[in-house]
């Protein structure tokens, strides 16, 4: 019979866990959400000799308490029946802190294997880890690996295959009972052969009593010791699940003491296993001297962002040329194919003017989006992203936000949905709320096609500048709103930034590739689903009216819908039913604004020279000028990003009311800003 093992990968953030996971699964991983929560769940499968492994990548966490969603969910998953073996990935170059999670995992009582990742860095720095003593002290196998250099990967999987159902190695060997003889001369608890972590007599006495009571109350409970420790820590979840009477022994939470004693043991381990600690100063400190400099930190960051956007527009445009040729060929081929087989005129129009115009137009922006995500992936994987939190902390502090709130905002340049989810890492709930509220104003990549197209249409050689100005306006609006929210708030917010700054590293090509591929896949999927359907709907409402099939689009349902809102948007210079209709359809996804324009004007490839000319003629004939175009871009920047964003805001704030308020707010801001641009611009021009 084929035997399958369920392996869970867990580890601290920045320990290289994802790189290790990717090294096994490649790009063939399934990304979904954990049931009920918006925490990403990555799954993959592999075969090693005759063993089949189902692997799950758990979120990066520092401990296994029940304070955050990620920690709670990882803990529940590991405690469940499903997991056979846990692979605890530790950054061996910063072993001391990583071992804390390891000790907690061992206490959970499941088979744990410690993967000592980044061994290449350990060697580079001249550090040495006693790989004989470490497993003796922890009681679990410790396998040196390097996900980056791909060493030790087979050995790790071999160990996983042979370590299922084996909780503790029998050769657990400590010396601390001897060392602490003076302190604990009459140590009553000789657990040192049984448990990796043995606490002080005070704690062990309490564990014994609680264990006894738990055994009476819940005889079938596995791992009494762990539950007893959690009750001592007054863990809300465990107290609720297994209430017992123990007010007489637990007078306060022993969590601090338990954490401290775990770290005492870790110090003991470090003394015995780590040699030549940091003989070479880490290069990170030298790089940080520049990147986190008091004065140059902010300009350096702005410079980096300027380069990112320059690459997005220029290299993206360069790559676009090839795309256009392919798209034109396909469109031409399909058109001739259809006329050759004598296809119905309506069907031909649907395919050419509806689907190819809508979906094809969007695909041509893929190169720009590819470059943008590539840049964001490099910033994240190199370790720079968390420095941005430090660099921007002073500026963000003036708005009453932690510097860390800048990370979701930065990610918002990619896509609002993961950006809003990233706000969860903020310590303060009020910070989180405000960050969720302002992140949609950061210009996401779906808005990029709108800027690229309209700035090419109306701003000639200043096109890149016009497009870039949208990003600046987005940031200014977000910051202004945060400032106003801070000023109007009764409590003066004080900064609660807390973030780890990982070592800098050369970005891993495989990790970046997989990250970017996920985003490209999302974009293609969106083109094939949301945009495909929206294009068909837009085509339909434009070609049918109350009288049936219409020859003049201004008699269609689409025109009727658009005309209703024309008076509202007229002050903003957007009083054309075509524009209104494209804005409405843009709520499905922002790219749809462009695709529905293409459908409206029947342009096969809006992003090609001839397409641009066609569109420009069509708009110009209706008196749509550069000023209208700029007001249009501002409106697109600021109004509701898309349905997916609304849903994410609702989930993250856990409130339909606030999600709707944010949508109304965005529409209002967009209308005011666009009107301001159009009216003031009208006076100047």
């Amino acid at each position: 019979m084929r035997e399958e093992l369920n392996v869970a990968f867990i580890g601290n953030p920045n320990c290289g866990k994802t790189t290790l996971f990717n090294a096994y699964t490649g790009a063939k991983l399934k990304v979904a959400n954990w049931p009920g929560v918006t925490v990403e769940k990555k799954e993959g499968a592999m075969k090693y000799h005759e063993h089949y492994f189902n692997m799950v990548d758990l979120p990066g966490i520092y401990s296994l308490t029940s304070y955050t969603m990620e920690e709670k969910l990882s803990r529940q998953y590991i405690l469940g029946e499903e997991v056979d073996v846990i692979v605890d990935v530790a950054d061996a170059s910063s072993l001391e802190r990583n071992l804390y999670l390891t000790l907690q995992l061992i206490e959970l009582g499941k088979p744990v294997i410690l993967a000592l990742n980044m061994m290449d860095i350990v060697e580079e720095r001249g550090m040495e880890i006693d790989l004989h003593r470490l497993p003796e002290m922890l009681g679990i196998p410790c396998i040196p690996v390097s996900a980056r250099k791909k060493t030790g990967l087979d050995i790790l999987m071999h160990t996983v295959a042979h370590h299922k159902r084996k909780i503790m190695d029998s050769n657990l060997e400590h010396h601390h009972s001897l060392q602490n003889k003076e302190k604990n001369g009459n140590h009553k608890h000789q657990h040192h052969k049984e448990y990796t972590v043995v606490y002080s007599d005070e704690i062990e006495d309490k564990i014994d009593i609680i264990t006894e009571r738990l055994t009476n109350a819940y005889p079938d409970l596995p791992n009494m010791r762990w539950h007893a420790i959690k009750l001592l820590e007054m863990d809300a979840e465990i107290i609720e699940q297994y209430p017992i009477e123990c007010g007489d022994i637990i007078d306060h939470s022993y969590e601090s003491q338990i954490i401290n004693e775990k770290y005492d043991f870790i110090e003991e381990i470090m003394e015995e296993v780590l040699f030549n600690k940091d003989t070479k100063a880490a290069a990170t400190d030298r790089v940080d001297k520049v990147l986190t400099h008091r004065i140059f930190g902010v300009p350096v960051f702005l410079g980096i962002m300027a380069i990112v956007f320059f690459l997005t527009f220029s290299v993206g445009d360069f790559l676009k040329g090839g795309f256009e040729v392919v798209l034109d060929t396909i469109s031409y081929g399909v058109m001739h194919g259809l006329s050759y087989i004598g296809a119905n005129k309506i069907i031909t129009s649907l395919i050419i003017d509806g689907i190819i115009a809508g979906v094809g137009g969007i695909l041509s922006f893929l190169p720009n989006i590819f470059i943008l995500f590539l840049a964001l992936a490099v910033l994240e994987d190199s370790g720079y992203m968390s420095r941005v939190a430090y660099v921007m902390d002073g500026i963000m502090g003036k708005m009453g936000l932690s510097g860390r709130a800048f990370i979701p905002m930065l990610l918002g340049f990619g896509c609002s949905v993961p950006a809003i989810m990233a706000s969860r890492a903020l310590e303060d709930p009020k910070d989180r709320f405000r960050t969720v509220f302002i992140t949609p104003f950061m210009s996401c990549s779906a808005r990029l096609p709108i800027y690229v197209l309209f700035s090419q249409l109306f701003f000639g050689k200043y096109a890149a500048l016009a497009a870039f100005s949208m990003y600046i306006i987005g940031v200014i609006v977000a910051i202004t709103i945060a400032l106003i929210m801070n000023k109007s708030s009764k409590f003066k917010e004080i900064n609660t930034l807390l973030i780890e700054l990982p070592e800098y590293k050369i970005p891993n090509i495989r990790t970046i590739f997989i990250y970017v591929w996920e985003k490209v896949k999302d974009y293609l999927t969106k083109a094939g689903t949301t945009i495909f359907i929206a294009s068909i709907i837009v085509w339909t409402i434009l070609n049918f009216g109350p009288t049936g099939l219409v020859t003049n689009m201004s008699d269609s349902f689409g025109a009727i819908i658009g005309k209703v809102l024309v008076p509202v948007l007229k002050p903003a210079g957007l009083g054309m039913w075509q524009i209104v209709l494209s804005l409405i359809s843009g709520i499905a996804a922002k790219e749809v604004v462009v695709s529905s324009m293409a459908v409206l004007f029947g342009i096969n490839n809006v992003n090609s020279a001839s397409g641009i000319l066609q569109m420009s003629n069509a708009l110009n004939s209706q008196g749509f000028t550069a000023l209208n175009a700029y007001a249009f871009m501002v409106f697109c920047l600021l109004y509701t990003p898309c349905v997916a964003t609304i849903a994410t805001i609702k989930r993250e704030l856990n409130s339909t009311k606030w999600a709707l308020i944010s949508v109304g707010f965005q529409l209002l801001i967009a209308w005011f800003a666009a009107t301001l641009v159009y009216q003031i611009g009208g006076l100047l021009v």
Partner: protein
Amino acid sequence: MSVRNGIIGSVYVVESLQMKGSTLRRLEALGLNVGTKITILNNKKSGTVIFMVRGTRLAIGAKIADSILIREDKV
């Protein structure tokens, strides 16, 4: 003195953590406990500090920085 007043490059010992709740637990889990040695790596006027604890660099805002009391490490 608080972490905020530490001199860049100097080593200090944590004397007490004047805070409660999840922030305290997070810091403790990251290995910042009473008696732990830390090295100040960088700071800004706004009160944001970068320090090294148990081989990890942490950046903290003014509020947290003010609640971590330290004393000089006597070697």
